[in-house]
């Protein structure tokens, strides 16, 4: 079970880091924000799996922190993009 969860964590991580290509290629800012969001969710899932696989309950707290900060950063990105795009100043 622990090995399976560990493998699952690695798989999820490998998958979402593939999405980094979207950050590189764009083409729009929305695409880059999305890829960062995916990386965040994948990281959270991997942390939860690792917490169980390695009996490190602290990793769930890390996932909790990450979830809140990801929400903050995503909103900041969208607000920042809207602000700089909308008024063009």
């Amino acid at each position: 079970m622990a090995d399976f969860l560990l493998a699952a964590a690695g798989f999820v991580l490998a998958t979402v880091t593939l999405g980094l290509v979207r950050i590189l290629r764009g083409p729009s800012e929305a695409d880059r924000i999305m890829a960062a969001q995916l990386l965040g969710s994948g990281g959270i899932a991997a942390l939860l799996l690792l917490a169980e696989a390695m009996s490190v309950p602290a990793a769930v707290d890390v996932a909790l922190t990450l979830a809140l900060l990801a929400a903050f950063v995503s909103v900041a990105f969208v607000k920042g993009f809207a602000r700089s795009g909308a008024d063009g100043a």
Partner: protein
Amino acid sequence: MSFALDALTILAVSTGAFFFLAGTVGLLRFPDALSRLHALTKADNLGLGLVVLGLLFQPEELFAGLKLVTVWLLTLLAGATVTQLIARTARPGGAQE
């Protein structure tokens, strides 16, 4: 009994991982921003949700289980809102706030 729980965990986590894969493939392959957003939400909601569900089947204390569900609900809430906001900026015509 524990074998059944383990089987459920493996099933749920595998399906969750599959949705992460589907979300990533969608993000990379779909033609435009809005459809990529659609793919992203599948990974966020179903992917993480199924992983959390699978982990809940493993024996642990109530508080630990509550924390898992909280993580999922927070991600769900934030993800749903942010994808809506992204969609507003991504649609043709741009943001009209």
